[in-house]
């Protein structure tokens, strides 16, 4: 089985690329692959806990928690996150906070990298 690193940059709300990234991660881990996810840019807004799932909007928290339970390692860019007014105690438990080198380190060990760009 392979090691997959996914970089997620688009925001949770506004396009479906974020949803795609999480569903892809779930599918990969279900097939037995080892998956890690890096959140940067607008995607970091999705790590805030206590999201209300309104049916007209995508939700991150429910899917992120499910991925954590499956053993997916996830990390948010600390600078991107605090710049959006989200502090670490407000974040979803289990998601790491680190600097951009975390993503590069995961890429180093990855068989495949999927970089899902923002905007």
């Amino acid at each position, binding site marked *: 089985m392979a090691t997959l690193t996914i970089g997620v940059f688009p925001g949770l709300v506004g396009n479906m690329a974020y949803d795609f990234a999480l569903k892809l991660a779930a599918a990969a881990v279900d097939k037995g692959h080892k998956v890690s996810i890096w959140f940067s*840019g607008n995607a970091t807004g999705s790590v805030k806990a206590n999201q209300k799932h309104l049916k007209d909007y995508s939700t991150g928290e429910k899917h992120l928690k499910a991925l954590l339970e499956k053993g997916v390692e996830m990390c948010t860019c600390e600078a991107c996150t605090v710049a959006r007014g989200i502090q670490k105690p407000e974040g979803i438990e289990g998601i790491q906070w680190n600097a*951009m080198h*975390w*993503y590069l380190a995961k890429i*180093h060990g*990855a068989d495949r990298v999927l970089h899902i760009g923002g*905007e």
Partner: protein
Amino acid sequence: MGDVKLAFVVQRPQYKGETSRLAITHAIAYQTVEILLEDGDTVTPTLCFIGEGVLGLQKGQKAMDTYGITSTETHLKNALLVDLDVLVCKEDLEKYGIPEDSIPDAEEMGADKTIRVVPFSEIQKAIEDAKHVLFF
């Protein structure tokens, strides 16, 4: 595993969105990645600007004065200071009428590297040499 070469390919203009800037800052992060890797393991990104990605790279930027944010010019200089390879597509600069001498360097800061304006074929080679290619 040793060194892993990466190509960061920037296709979007600076300042229009965030990810074109994040390409530069993520590439610069290579200088500290070793704290998370085994001894002898390294990551070497090459930062490539193509298409609309060549827009917003010129020197003389006043982003700090105008917006209160670090300019792309400063980020590029920092990239040179940490010895990143930075390539800008010559054909795309010509397409937009941007003179090569408008591209900044960091000589005054003591950087050994300069931004290299190169034909796309050289950027393609950097992409082919990379284990992973990331499009920003």
